[in-house]
C-alpha cells in the first residue's frame, strides 16, 4: 500500500502488468524496478519517482561498485593474473615474458605478487572501468586463475 500511493494509478499497462496494484506488489518483491514504469520517468511525476527511489533503498538507487576479490587461502602466487592482465602488459614491459614487474609498482599496475600471494594494488585503471566498448567486458584474471581464487563482484 505504501508503494501504491506513489504510482500514477492509471492502469495504463505500459509496464506489462494488468494494474498499478499488481506492479506495486512486484516492486515490493523486487521483481521489477521503479524505472520499469514509463509514466514515472516523466517530469510531472518527479516527486513520486524520487520518493519511491528513496524508500526502496540502495539496491535500487546507487551505482554498484566493482570489486576484484582474491581469496587468500586459495592463491598460490603463480602470477598468471599478473602476466595476462592487459593493463599490466601495456605498462610493465617485464611482465610480457612472464617476469615479475618492478617494485615500487608503476602507477597503472593492477596486480603484484607479494609474500607468495597475489595482491590487487589499485583498481582505477582496470579495463572494466577505464575502457570503451567490448574491452569493458574483460574477465581474463578470473577466467585463467587455476585455483579459482580471483572473483569479480559488484557490491
Amino acid at each position: 500500500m505504501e508503494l501504491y500511493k506513489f504510482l500514477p494509478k492509471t492502469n495504463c499497462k505500459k509496464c506489462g502488468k494488468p494494474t498499478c496494484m499488481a506492479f506495486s506488489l512486484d516492486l515490493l518483491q523486487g521483481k521489477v524496478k521503479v524505472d520499469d514504469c514509463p509514466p514515472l520517468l516523466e517530469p510531472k511525476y518527479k516527486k513520486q519517482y524520487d520518493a519511491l527511489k528513496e524508500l526502496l533503498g540502495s539496491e535500487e538507487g546507487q551505482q554498484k561498485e566493482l570489486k576484484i576479490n582474491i581469496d587468500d587461502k586459495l592463491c598460490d602466487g603463480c602470477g598468471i593474473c599478473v602476466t595476462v592482465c592487459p593493463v599490466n602488459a601495456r605498462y610493465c614491459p617485464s611482465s610480457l615474458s612472464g617476469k615479475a614487474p618492478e617494485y615500487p609498482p608503476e602507477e597503472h599496475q593492477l596486480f603484484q605478487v607479494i609474500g607468495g600471494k597475489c595482491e590487487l594494488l589499485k583498481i582505477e585503471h582496470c579495463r572494466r572501468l577505464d575502457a570503451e566498448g567490448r574491452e569493458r567486458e574483460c574477465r581474463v584474471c578470473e577466467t585463467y586463475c587455476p585455483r579459482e581464487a580471483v572473483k569479480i563482484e559488484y557490491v
Partner: protein
Amino acid sequence: MKRFTCSGCSLLCDDIIVQSDGLFISEVIGACLKGKERFDLVSAKNRIISPLIRKDGELKEASWDEAIKKAIEIIKNSSIPLLYGFSNVSCEAQDAGIKLAQKIDGFIDSNASICQGKIFNKAKSLGINLTTITEIINKGDLIILWGANPAETVPRLLNKVLFSRGKFRMTGREIKTLVIVDPIKTASFRVMGVRDLPLIIEPNKDIDLIRMLKEECCTANSIPSQGVAGIDKNDLKRLLLHLTGAENGVIILGQGVIQPHPDYDLVEELLELLQMINKRQEKGRISLLIMGGHFNMAGFDHVALSAYGVSGHLEFKHNQMVKTEDTLVSKIEKEDFDSSIIVGTDPISHLPHSLSSKIAKKPLILIDNHSTATSHIADVVLPTAITGIESGGLAYRLDQVPIELNKLLNPPNNLPSDEELLNQLHGLLNKGGSE
C-alpha cells in the same frame, strides 16, 4: 632494484625482488608460495641450528667436536657406506660428496635416479630433443602436459610458458595451444580455453595411446572408431593434427609416465614416438622438458659426467671407480650397505616402506637444516647453511641451464655450507688414515 634468484624449485626464477638489510628478510616480491616458503626457512619453527647425537635412544644436542667425532667413528666402522640425496645442494657440494665417496669406498647416488634421471638414461640409446624455457617463451606454440601437474608443483611454469608474450608470439595465450593428458581432472585443467584439448585418459592406459599414435604415423587412417583408452576419435584426430603441424612444440613429462610395468617400457616407447613425429613434422619439431622437484636435481648427473665420464650413480672400491650393475634401489633391497650418509633429503618419507625400513636399521648420518621424518631416526644430525640464501653455488635448472645462486644473509651460529662440511669430513679422514 637488483633481482635475486629463488631456490624454491627446479625452475630457478631469477626475477625475484628481495628487500633485506643483511640481517633479516622483510619482503619477497614476485616469488610464488613455494619460493616464499624457501625464504621463510631461515627462521622456520623446526629449523635445526646445532648438531644432534642419539644417546640412550634419544636425540640430544651436542657440540660440533662431539658430533663430528661420532660421524667419523660411524664412517670408519663401515666398509660399504651408501651416500644419497644431493639434489638440494650446490654443484660444488655434489663434487665434494663424490670425492668423499671415493675416499671411503662408497656408493653415491642422487634423487634424480628415481625421478628425472630415468628418462635421460633411456635417451642414451634413442637420442632426445631438448629445449629451454626462453625458447618456449619466444617461439613455442604447442604445449602438452603428460602425467604432470604444474599448477600444484611448479606454480610459475604455466605463467612463463603459456601466458607470456614472447618475441615471435606477441599475442600470448591466444596463439598457444594446451593439451593435457591425465586420468584425474587436476587444477592445471582450469587454465584451458576454447581452443585447447583436455584428454582425460583411463588409468594405466597411456601405452595404448602411444602405440596408436605410432601406428598412425606409419599408416594413415588407422584410428579406431571407438577411440582409445577412453578418448574419442575426433579428439585423437585433433591431437595428431597439432603434433604434426606445430612449429615449436614441447611435451612436459612428470611422475605419471615413469611408473614401471612388467610387460613394456613406457618411457622408451614415448621417446620412439617423439622421433617418429619429428621425422613426419612439416614445419618444426617437438622437444621434451622434464619437471623435477628439488632445485638442483639435474646437477648431479652433470657433475658426475664431468668428473668421471658416467652420468648417474658411482661406485668406488679401493679408492677407484668400478663399473656396477647395481642401482640405488637394488643396493637397498639387497641390504648391500652397512651405513648411510643422507644429504638434504628425506628418504624415510619418500621411499616405499620396504626400502626405508632397511635404511633405518643401519647407522645413519644426516646433513640437513630442518626436522624431517629422517631426522627422527638418525644417529647424528649435522646442520648446514641454506644454499641459495645463506651460501652460494651453482645449480642446474630443469632445462639443463646452469644458474649461479648468491648469498644474501649470514648463517646463524656460523653454520658451515654443505661443501665446507663434506670437505672437512674428507680432510679428517685423511689425517687419521682411511680404512
